[in-house]
């Protein structure tokens, strides 16, 4: 109950400020009223665009989610395989660890121009940015988690007749999976950042593109609902991943406590 207090407070402040501005200037655009925002959402999400015939907000959401999920799923898959093998085989960690550590130090946004030049301004560059920005973190995290699994487990598995592959993919991998889900939850924030940055700079659709497009017309009535919508999407993804952990990996949550 107490948790709702700050939300209510901010909302109240906004409404008061918006109301004050509208009393001075009924066509104020900077702090739109709820009804103005409602109209904007009606226009963006539930009315087909005059030019393209698409429902813009729906379309923006679909393309953005596709970019985001492609990037993060690729990063998770590569990070999982690489990190697991690095954690298991000293030769692998010797080869890749310095490289991954270096890559992780490069600020991803600084290589965005390179990506646009090298890969064009289409989907590939945007997905690549999300991938490059998140996979080093995932790899390192999986690597450390693999290393933390007690050596005894590997010995024990060998005495039960496990092969090297069995150990990697039937003993260690299932134990790393929930940790991977946790890591993805944490990197989702960064992934959104890279997505919106890439869309803001070179795109023709997407949630980030739209916000930066309508900024030119000071269309706060569109921007604010979009921001709330993006937050809601992020929250939902996090919630879904947490639900997955609870349902399928109850043992992991207990261990973590």
């Amino acid at each position, binding site marked *: 109950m107490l948790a709702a207090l700050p939300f209510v407070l901010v909302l109240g402040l906004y409404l008061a400020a918006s109301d004050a501005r509208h009393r001075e200037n009924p066509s104020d655009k900077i702090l739109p009223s709820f009804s103005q925002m409602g109209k904007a959402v009606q226009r963006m999400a539930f009315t087909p665009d005059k030019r393209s015939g698409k429902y813009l907000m729906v379309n923006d959401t679909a393309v953005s989610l596709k970019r985001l999920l492609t990037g993060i799923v690729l990063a998770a898959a590569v990070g999982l395989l690489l990190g697991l093998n690095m954690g298991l085989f000293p030769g692998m960690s010797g080869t890749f660890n310095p490289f991954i550590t270096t890559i992780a130090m490069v600020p991803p946004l600084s290589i965005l121009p390179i990506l646009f030049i090298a890969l064009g301004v289409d989907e590939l560059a945007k997905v690549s940015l999300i991938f490059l920005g998140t996979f080093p973190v995932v790899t390192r995290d999986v690597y450390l988690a693999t290393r933390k699994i*007690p050596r005894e487990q590997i010995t*024990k598995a060998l005495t*039960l007749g496990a092969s090297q592959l069995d150990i990697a993919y039937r003993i260690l991998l299932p134990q790393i999976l929930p940790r991977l889900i946790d890591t993805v939850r944490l990197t989702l924030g960064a992934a959104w950042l890279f997505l919106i940055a890439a869309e803001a700079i070179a795109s023709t659709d997407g949630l980030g593109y739209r916000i930066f497009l309508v900024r030119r017309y000071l269309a706060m009535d569109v921007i604010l609902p979009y921001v709330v919508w993006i937050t809601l999407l992020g929250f939902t993804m996090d919630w879904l991943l947490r639900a997955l952990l609870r349902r399928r990996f109850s043992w992991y949550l207990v261990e973590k406590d």
Partner: protein
Amino acid sequence: MSSETLLHILDVYKSYGEKLILDNIDLTVRSGELCTLVGPSGAGKSTLLRLILGQEPPSSGELQLDGRPIGFPDPSRGIVFQRYSLFPHLTVLENVALGANLAAGMLERWRRRKEIQDHAMTYLERVRLGAHADKYPHELSGGMQQRVAIAQSLIKRPRILLMDEPFGALDPDTREQMQVFLLELWDETRMTVFFVTHDLEEAAYLGTRILVLSQYYTDDRGDGARRGAKVVADYQLPRAVASTATKHSAGFLELIETIRLEGFSPAHLQDVGEFNLRHPDSFQTLTEAERHSNPG
């Protein structure tokens, strides 16, 4: 009790850098024996166990199981650690079934899943945990977890079951229950067990044979020589599954006092020639340097 030699260890040394841990270990163990290894901390009990397990190679010397040299860990030697023997992401039944599942191909595993499950269940029932099959390891008490770990190892029918301080993390009551449990299980199966513990009472209570590994001894190598631990005493014990009351009998207490003196007392140094190696399987190969002036 069958009398074949199962485990054969000859002239085994193990050192880490400059530090010599195991110093010319000689040992044979017959199948069916419940062999306990006891000694002061730092004597290298767990090191010897790791060598038998194959987790580490000896610096020199040979270890054989059934006449074949010991290599990397494999299903011929089962292991129960003090902790981490169970896989946290598998249910109790899945943990026990793992050995059978790993041996089967993917298709076979699917086709025989019911059979494998029933098979694992019989082992789980043998350690009296049938009712907990669907729980995860973290939902069990420490003693139950160790019982699952034993069942998990037994399903592979290892030639020898190695146990490294398996009850060391348990509270005294549970620990005693587990000792009785292990003796009953051993009585049923007559499996060969190699049991490492630092608890002298536990070693004497459980074993049909008790080996004492200790760095407190003397020989003719001179004062400055690098010495590691040796088997300084080796007793055959009568084995009838005994109630825990045995632990208070006069004979039992006397044995413990003797072993404490022989193995655990830095002030009491026996010469290598005078070790109490009374067990019929016991033998000792001393080097020239060790018994220079000691023809015996």
